[in-house]
């Protein structure tokens, strides 16, 4: 491995890293909002919307991200919606992640003991107060492990963005290999940067999980 090559490519990878991170986090943020909204709709069994949410979940959980991205990137313009590659990446990741986040949060919501709600009712709290102060915090805490698993999964999924010519890590690696054939160095940097992106999430995640997990209250 040539250290000079590594140093030479480093800035390019750095840029790609930042872009990947940006799309990744925006997409994950979006997926979280979609997840909360959809889980809310499923939990309260809101008619019509509930059917739409269920169809959405099935659709996005059962198709690869690559296909979803192609649809958004090449399909939407044909329908008259023009959207940049970057928004397309964020939207794609957000929609895919949203379907997974919905499931994670929904199971968390359903895990809240009915008696907890009864005791909140007996304290004359109204529905909104019970949802905000009793149900949601407990649901988020108990769905923390799947949420974190989803975050890591989604960050890894960013590697397919190169397909819609976003200059992400994967794209940069493939591009450089194609141009200069420094395969070893390029792949090494690719792995390093992905680890750099995911390791902090993993570590931070497990700390966070311990802190908020249901069983962890008061440890």
């Amino acid at each position, binding site marked *: 491995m040539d250290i000079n090559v590594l140093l030479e490519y480093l800035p390019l990878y750095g840029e790609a890293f930042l872009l990947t991170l940006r799309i990744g986090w925006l997409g994950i943020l979006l997926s979280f909002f979609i997840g909360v909204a959809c889980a809310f709709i499923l939990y309260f069994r809101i008619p019509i919307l509930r059917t739409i949410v269920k169809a959405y979940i099935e659709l996005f959980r059962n198709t690869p991200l690559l296909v979803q991205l192609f649809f958004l990137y090449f399909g939407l313009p044909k329908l008259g919606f023009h959207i940049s590659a970057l928004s397309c990446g964020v939207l794609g990741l957000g929609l895919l992640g949203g379907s997974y986040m919905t499931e994670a949060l929904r199971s968390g919501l359903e895990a809240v003991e009915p008696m*907890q709600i009864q005791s909140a009712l007996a*304290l004359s709290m109204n529905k909104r107060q019970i949802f905000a102060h009793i149900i949601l915090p407990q649901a988020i805490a108990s769905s923390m492990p799947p949420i974190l698993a989803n975050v890591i999964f989604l960050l890894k999924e960013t590697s397919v963005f190169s397909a819609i010519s976003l200059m992400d890590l994967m794209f940069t690696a493939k591009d450089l290999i194609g141009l200069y054939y420094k395969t070893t160095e390029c792949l090494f940097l690719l792995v390093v940067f992905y680890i750099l992106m995911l390791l902090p999430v993993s570590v931070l995640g497990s700390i966070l999980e311990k802190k908020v997990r249901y069983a962890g209250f008061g440890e």
Partner: protein
Amino acid sequence: MNEILVTEHLHKEYEGMTVLEDINLTVKKGEVVVIVGPSGCGKSTFLRCLNGLETIQDGRVLLDNEVINPGRKNLTKVREKIGMVFQSYELFPHKTILQNVTLAPIKVQKRDKAEAQKEALALLARIGLEGKKDSYPRQLSGGQKQRVAIVRALMMHPEILLFDEVTAALDPEMVREVLEVILALAKEGRTMVIVTHEMAFARAVADRIIFLDGGQIIEEAAPDAFFTHPQTGRAKKFLESFSYEKK
């Protein structure tokens, strides 16, 4: 005319099965009414009808002459006057003890946070748990949790307190610490409706005993009279189930 809680011809069904039949009960201010009866006779259901956690099919429940009925808009307002303590404590696991007891006063009654906390600390001190204010429920013993649950109910300044077998889930050595808190409340003149399987406690705390069986009030009597001379065969049989004899 100092009655707080009245039920008139209360009738409750679950999916067509009658669980409570024609229950007429009046609880006066300062009175302690203890409900006893075999398992499944409808005691919990009755308490839950009193604060509108259950719908009823016929009759009515009145608190301070206001009808309690699930679905009525003012239900949460009327409920503020009724405190309830459950067998399984039901403290909120994600909140500290202090947060548990001040949540509803602050959010529901919009009371000043500092003032609510001050009162909470005074009440926690009375049960010897002020040192636990920043602990989480899971760090407390069952008896401690149940006493906190009582404080949580008291924090709403209810006019009447409902207790549903609040010692049934406790280890025997913790039963007394909880019952003593309730006895102290009775001495203060609190109005209470208590469901319990602790017969010695029932006799000590009650002004009146209601014996419920098969969803009906079978006997209603002063505690000494009920425990020494039950009037019905069913009550006799029920009380006998608590004594042991070597055969």
